[in-house]
């Protein structure tokens, strides 16, 4: 009897380990995460507008229907990325996600404080190679370190009312996401 109790106890303890391992492995193993869904629709290092969510179709779940959305699926292995996103009249934000959907940085138009959100995205290794004087002199040059080599930059522009959606989409259409190959 006690022997079986021990087997059961062992099974529950081992079950706890299985539980933790599967939860921790899920972000790497998931095949339907945001990056995988967008990989089928978007070329790399280019800004692509996402179709507006409708009742019939949305690329990702729980997208805010009041926003125009564009995505740059980035790959830093060939060099850093230069992002330029003009702000729309209402509200514009740029959010950076790792390959496994962690939002590691977000900035909005007011925090950017200019008429466009401009920044450089690079890996920590690429950042370390930026000449120091360049880093200092360009004080207004915003450099973001990406924790992963690939990931997503998501640009969102608010349409305060449905009739202004075209305006929000136009604002995002002129945004640029360019790879800067190392010489």
């Amino acid at each position, binding site marked *: 009897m006690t022997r*079986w109790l021990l087997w059961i106890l062992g099974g529950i303890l081992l079950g706890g380990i*299985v539980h933790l*391992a599967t939860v921790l492995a*899920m972000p790497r193993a998931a095949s339907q995460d945001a990056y*995988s869904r967008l990989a089928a629709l978007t070329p790399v290092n280019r800004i692509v507008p996402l179709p507006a969510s409708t009742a019939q179709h949305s690329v990702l*779940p729980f997208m805010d229907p009041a926003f125009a959305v564009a995505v740059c699926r980035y790959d830093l292995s060939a060099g850093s990325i230069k992002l330029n996103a003009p702000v729309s009249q209402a509200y514009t934000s740029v*959010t950076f996600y790792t390959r496994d959907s962690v939002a*590691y940085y977000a900035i909005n138009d007011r925090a950017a404080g200019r008429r466009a959100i401009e920044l450089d995205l690079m890996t920590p290794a690429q950042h370390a190679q930026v000449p120091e004087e360049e880093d200092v002199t360009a004080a207004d040059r915003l450099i973001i370190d990406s924790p992963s080599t690939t990931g997503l930059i998501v640009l969102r522009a608010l349409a305060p009312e449905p009739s202004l959606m075209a305006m929000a989409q136009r604002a995002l259409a002129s945004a640029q996401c360019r790879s800067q190959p190392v010489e």
Partner: protein
Amino acid sequence: MRLLLGTLFTFALAAIVGLGTTWLTLTRGVAFGSLTIGAWTAWPKSGSQDIDPYAHAGIARDGELPIGIGDGVAFYARGDDTGQVFDGRCSFSVSGMTPPARFWTVALYDIQGHLVANAIDRHGFTSEEIVRNADGSFTIAVAPQARPGNWLPTGGIERFVLVWRLYDSPIGVAATTLKEGPMPAVTRKSCS
């Protein structure tokens, strides 16, 4: 023989317990560090690198991209103020004020996060287009049939989720220390 049986039994039990609890936590949406105000719950840390492993596993499975903490914060309501789960065949009123934010939006989804088809193609409101009372408060009628004023159609589906997003709001930054803010009250009115 006994050892083999016991080992097999233990492994089988471990698989059932481990995978079962993982499945349960992911389908129920377990996450830590939540901020609840009335019917509304937000997980501000899910929009940062401090996301907890359960929330991380959940978004990886669903394909959602959580709102970044420098962008805003999203509050989810799956039921009214009394805790009763939403039924899209009933009507609800969402009224009151919101915490400070430069902009906010509210949107209605089915439980998978899709928008819900309806006759007037209305899926939510923004802070700019909502019709307000003289004191700045507002009332949204969430109902299957047309209502005067701010009508948010449920499309008559059984279960729905309301998501209130505050953009450029101090709530996203100082979330865990914030006392109860003025989130809108959610009241069940009638059922058809």
